[in-house]
């Protein structure tokens, strides 16, 4: 594919819109390089904005975080020259990404969030979306109680703003707060329009189903939990939900189904997982091995032929340094890995 002229690059950027693939991501990076060669800042801006989207939706959030400030800088240096609204839209992804990395301090998150809030206010984004992101921040930083207050405040604001998420995403985003506050009936009530498909988007209801699975599990309604588990499996292509699937299967002692997922995931790419994804994954592995051990299974053989040695050392290293809370499950995992 030729990506040399401005027109070729612009056409390709348009083609990539919401079409997230590894190939597109790499080619868009090439567009960035070509735009730099052409010394065309407007083109470079468009290419970088698309590149950040590709990185974000393909899970390379560490790179998205690193490149995003360039977009902000452009908009600040040349006000009104670039599409500021699109940059602010991307800012929402970046703000959410920050919570996923243990190396980013709370102070840093707070400072970025203040900048985010200031910009959204100045743009006229409206209080609904700002309050929603405050709720999200509090919840992600381990304060569901206060997050609930902001959830209620966000619900009371009816006026919509130009940077609001789609309705399906807004509702979906509140479910975790309600779940963590054990308001299970309200989770189901709130999720009803999503489950009835009255509101939906590219990711919702796919990412809503696992939340419903665990809500029904907490309510002891296993048949309904299973129904939504099946839907989770069906819709798991849009997002990696493996840790949730492993948790559910382990809790239900469906070890053989769970084993194949654990094995596959151990052999696949972990490089770009953020800390929270890694943590969730190991946590779910911990539960899997613990439950299997409790039910009398002493040993298990795992095919790790595609699992790189480098990765194994990394996992062992992480197990020793970062993930002390999950030591017992990991010990079993590591023993098995070392034996293999």
């Amino acid at each position, binding site marked *: *594919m030729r990506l040399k002229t401005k027109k070729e690059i612009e*056409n390709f950027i348009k083609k990539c819109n919401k079409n997230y693939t590894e190939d597109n991501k*790499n080619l868009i*990076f*090439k567009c*960035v*390089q070509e735009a*730099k*060669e052409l010394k065309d800042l407007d083109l470079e801006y468009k290419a970088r904005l698309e590149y950040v989207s590709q990185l974000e939706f393909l899970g390379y*959030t*560490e*790179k998205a*975080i*690193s*490149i995003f*400030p*360039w977009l902000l*800088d452009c908009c600040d240096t040349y006000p009104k020259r670039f599409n500021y609204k699109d940059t602010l839209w991307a800012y929402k992804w970046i703000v959410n990404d*920050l919570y996923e*990395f243990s*190396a*980013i301090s709370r102070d*840093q998150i707070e*400072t*970025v969030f203040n900048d985010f809030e200031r910009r959204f206010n100045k743009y006229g984004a409206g209080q609904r979306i700002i309050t929603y992101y405050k709720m999200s921040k509090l919840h992600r930083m381990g304060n569901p109680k206060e997050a609930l207050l902001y959830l209620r405040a966000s619900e009371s604001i009816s006026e919509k703003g130009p940077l609001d998420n789609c309705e399906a995403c807004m509702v979906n985003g509140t479910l975790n707060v309600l779940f963590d506050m054990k308001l299970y009936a309200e989770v189901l009530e709130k999720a009803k329009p999503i489950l009835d498909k009255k509101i939906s988007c590219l990711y919702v209801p796919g990412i809503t189903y696992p939340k419903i699975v665990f809500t029904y599990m907490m309510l002891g309604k296993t048949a309904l939990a299973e129904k939504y588990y099946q839907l989770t499996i069906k819709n798991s292509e849009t997002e990696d939900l493996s840790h949730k699937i492993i948790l559910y299967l382990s809790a239900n002692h469906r070890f053989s189904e769970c084993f194949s997922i654990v094995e596959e995931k151990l052999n696949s790419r972990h490089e770009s997982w953020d800390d929270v994804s890694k943590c969730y994954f190991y946590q779910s592995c911990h539960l899997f091995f613990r439950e299997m051990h409790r039910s009398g299974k002493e040993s298990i053989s795992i095919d790790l032929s595609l699992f790189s040695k480098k990765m194994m050392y990394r996992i062992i290293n992480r197990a020793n340094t970062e993930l002390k809370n999950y030591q017992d499950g990991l010990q079993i995992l590591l023993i098995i890995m070392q034996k293999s």
Partner: protein
Amino acid sequence: MKNTPFLVNLSGIIKILSDHLYSQKEVFIRELLQNAIDAINARKKTETFEPLITIEYFNNSDGAGFIISDNGIGLTARQVEEFLAKIGSSSKLDDSMRNDFIGQFGIGILSCFMVSDDIVLITRPSEEDQAIKWTGNIDGTYVIETITYDLTIGTKVILKLRDKINLNSNGIVSSIKKYGQYLHIPINIEINSISKGTINRSFPWEENLDGDQCLALGQEVFDEGFTNYILLKDKKTNRNQGVLYLSPQASYLTDRKEGYLYVKRIFVTTASNDILPKWAVFVRAIINSENISLNASRESIYPNEISEQLKKNVEDSIKEYFYQLSKSAPSTLKRIIQTHSFPLKQMALTDESFLVFIAKWFEFDTTYGQLNLNEIRELNETIFYVTNSDEFKQIIPIAIANKKLVVNAGYTFDKGIIKKISVIDKTRDYVEIAANYFGDFLGNIDVDDHQKYEPIINDLQLHLDKYHCKIKLRGYEPESIPAIYHASIDSLIAEDIKNIQKDQNDLWKSISESVFDPQEQYNSHLYLNLKNKVVSSLLKKSGSLNDLIIKTLYVNAKLLGHYPLNNIELIAMNDNFNDLIQLALISDNNETKD
């Protein structure tokens, strides 16, 4: 509880249907032609006669209009009342008759309201001796009268065009031709009482045309000179016929597909997405289908199993043609595949057996030039390939010098094709050269040399640390190349992020550095060639010029690999250049003194 009927604003509904159902005003010609054909076909079932349709266009002091007449079966008073006065009623809705007729929804007559405020229809059925005149108005009212002055068997529709409707005579003739030329019923055309001839032709596949005639017809329709065509085969139902022309121009997946779809011989659409598979961008089609379903406007296909089957017929016909060509005219097939490699590669990825057949004809860029897969397989037991075109460009000189064949699988679909073939073809090993292992491709040096030169390499490395480039020692052909620079796409990304980090405020810089450390994760490499004289001299001992030499080799290797230089490297290049000139001048002065 009492059921209350809806109240419908009839005039509003008529306007909405007529204005929004159809995309073009001329479509009323097709709708009236359709009714005429259906009436003629119905009469044919009861008696033998010479069918004829006449379309007259007039433009005089009273205004402009159309008279469209047929000598079909006509309508009785009861049928006029039933079918013309009730929107949605059609004489063709009866299941037993449905397949014989083109129209089925009973709303086609509404299209006339796009151009006229009144529709006058005079009809006389063959079994009655009086005619009916029905006058429908756009306000939703109509009048029916019995008349005795126009007693020809058949139907005549008279439309007086609104003042704003401008149609020219050439446009009218071409619209009539477009919709009605293949109906197999003669259509007389008169413009202001002057005959413009009769149109009545057969589809290309019905005329026993020889190859050249069929190609000439393709050129007439598509204004493109063809050299190959395929007759559409529908072995399953035999209800789809057509001819598929292969464009002689290279096609890309973004190109527009072209085609003319006729349903029951009347033109429906050029929207070829409905009839051609996604990859068939190089096909120009003329197709007549007897069983495909249309939507209410009859301007596009109703997607269902039948439309999918039609696409399958197109796909199968093309494949069968290619199979035949491979035996009868392989050079022609080779040319077609070369011209349309993009879409054919896309098709092959969805059909393994076709991939096995066609893959050997696909050509790839290799370090030995353009080769097809068969040639590549004959040359090597192990087939190396690179999935990034830029990296392939860097590999070319080294691979050639080291007599290694490497395939460029960096173009769209090539990676997929090679990967699929690697699963199917068990007789060869297909090995992807990953960017990180680029250096392995270059000749290794022996352990003694490695140990011997390690201290000086470490010393040289200090000069390149600020460029985040690692020196590796190799020995490779050609000897004339002192150093090769290599940066994988990951290295380029890392460098890009590094540059962004440098210009950021402290907050973003520290956040970025805590989640992504380019220096730790990626490095570019400078592969020094021990076989090169400059390099072997450089490695003999540490000296004051080592900094200058290694930086010069570095910048030179980067430029040779078409990598952009950043500001620090540009400054280094300039400094090196000055130093070299100064050294040359000093040396020259010393020689003069001597």
